């Protein structure tokens, strides 16, 4: 719909001056939020930032590369516990964070191998098996999981005289912003286009010169890197880790976030992350109804709005841009 005249324009993340204004206003709003909003809102927003990283990773895998994975909880656990153990041994937090991402990415590479031969439901089962296996290993091994009490993680001590909650908000905001920028760049690079080609038709992509092995594995590795970092940040934020945080339901939650937010869209991932965090908060009085809300939303989204929350947002924008014409 936008006329793109040069490669440079194609690579630009923001193409219209007004979009620049909106994005700037949104970022400004997020920066000012901890000063105006009550503490628990800041707290929830921080969790949304953390989740948005993992959801973006999952979206790169499901939405862009078209490979189903039900094993995200496994990567989450690997990232979180790698981070926990590294930081207990006195490794500085940014190195531990990198280590957590790399460890999860390495396992993602291993899990990616079945994807070279398996498709659709078969791949779903293989990845699900991985997720459950990781969970069981952590549950049954006290050395890895830190035993019955869980693994205590040193929280970040606030700098610049900020209150802990504000400091952690800004820290995770920066992290989420970094990874969001990274996802935009991945998508508009050769790598992202190779992912999309694999999703649309892998054999055709291979015929056109996409190295299928490399890019399928890369997709798994990048996605699990994101998820591992999410796990590490979650540990850093909550201050403790236990295996029961990473059950099969956690994989489902990430999956639901991608679907509701919108497949193959970064903005959608952010909206989806906000959705899966906000719904349990809003319905906290009826905790057992949370799955029902997820389920009903999935059904409605898929029947009436296959592109998810992002699709709705996109249509609204189009409506106002063209108003009063239809």
């Amino acid at each position, binding site marked *: 719909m936008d006329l793109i005249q040069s490669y440079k324009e194609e690579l630009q993340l923001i193409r219209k001056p007004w979009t620049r204004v909106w994005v700037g206003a949104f970022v400004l709003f997020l920066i000012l939020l901890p000063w105006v909003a009550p503490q628990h809102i800041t707290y929830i927003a921080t969790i949304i930032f953390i989740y948005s990283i993992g959801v973006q990773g999952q979206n790169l895998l499901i939405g862009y590369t078209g490979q189903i994975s039900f094993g995200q909880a496994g990567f989450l656990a690997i990232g979180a516990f790698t981070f926990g153990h590294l930081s207990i041994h006195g490794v500085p937090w940014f190195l531990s964070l990198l280590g957590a991402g790399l460890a999860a990415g390495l396992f993602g590479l291993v899990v990616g191998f079945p994807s070279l*031969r398996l498709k659709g439901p*078969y791949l779903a089962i293989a990845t*699900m*098996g991985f997720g459950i*296996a990781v969970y069981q290993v952590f549950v049954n091994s006290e050395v890895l999981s830190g035993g019955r009490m869980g693994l205590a993680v040193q929280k970040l001590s606030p700098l610049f005289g900020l209150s802990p909650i504000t400091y952690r908000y800004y820290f995770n905001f920066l992290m989420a912003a970094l990874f969001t920028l990274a996802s935009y760049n991945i998508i508009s690079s050769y790598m992202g286009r190779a992912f999309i080609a694999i999703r649309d038709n892998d054999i055709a992509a291979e015929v056109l010169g996409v190295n299928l092995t490399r890019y399928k594995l890369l997709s798994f590795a990048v996605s699990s890197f994101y998820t591992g970092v999410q796990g590490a940040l979650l540990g850093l934020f909550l201050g403790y880790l236990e295996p029961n945080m990473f059950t099969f339901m956690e994989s489902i939650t990430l999956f639901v976030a991608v679907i509701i937010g919108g497949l193959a869209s970064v903005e959608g991932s952010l909206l989806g992350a906000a959705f899966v965090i906000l719904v349990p908060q809003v319905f906290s009085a009826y905790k*057992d109804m949370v799955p*029902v809300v997820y*389920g*009903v939303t*999935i059904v409605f989204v898929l029947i009436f709005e296959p592109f998810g929350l992002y699709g709705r947002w996109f249509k609204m924008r189009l409506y106002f841009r063209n108003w009063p014409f239809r």
Partner: protein
Amino acid sequence: MTKFLQYAISGLSTGSIYALVALGLALIYRSTRILNFAHGDITTAGTFFAFMLLGFHFSFGLAFALAILFGSALAMAFYFCILVPAQRREATQLGQIILTLGLGLIVQGLVARFGGTDIQSFPFPLSDTKIYRFAGVVISQLSLGTLLVGILASLLFYLLVQKTKLGLAMRATSENLPAAQTMGIPTRRILALSWGLAAMLGVLAGLFLAPALLLDPFFMLEPFLKGFAAAILGGLNSLPGAIVGGLILGVAESLAGGYVSIAFKNTFAFLMIILVLLVRPEGLLGKEFKERV
């Protein structure tokens, strides 16, 4: 040797449950190419329905029959009220699979809301503690009953699919939908019936699992995942494959639990499946994939 036989027998008993769950999943996948993620939750709903009826002092036979009918009605309602409209709006394959995930979440939440999240023991006519001995091998009344019911249900199901007119219509529909339609088969009704039948098999499995596992809204999650794995192991589009896969998975799991480590029972089962899939991506008895670009 006796120890081995003991593990094998108890494995066959759990395996027959997995086979029942896997049969339901394979039946739906074969005819509609949909992986039914709501299978476990529909089963849970059916089992809770039976539990509720037993609370009203219904007899076992009546309560179980009504529960099976309830489960199949739920599955058919889902097919007509959600899947058909979604297909009219040209939902993709992945979209339809995710719809079943959504249904699963809804049913799970409702069961937890109305059934309660407490762990309850499920009254059952067969006893868990009464045991029989055959040549040194011990088997409880419940496992024996489970094994027999699993075999009987699979056999009946086989006869239904292979020997009746309805089964012929089901096979035709799963083989080629447009051609079956052209031949005058009411495919929509047949597909709805397949969903109902699959749920029946699932609820049957759930009723026999509930006394062994104790009843709570999530008790079917693990057996459902295992049944899923069994169906994949046997090949998702093959009904005999589902039975074979279920029995193999049950025995392998029981042997791994007995000889290696009970804590990593599930891990071994899934590792085995991943290895089998790497060698034979289409499952043990499945047909090879053919794809056009």
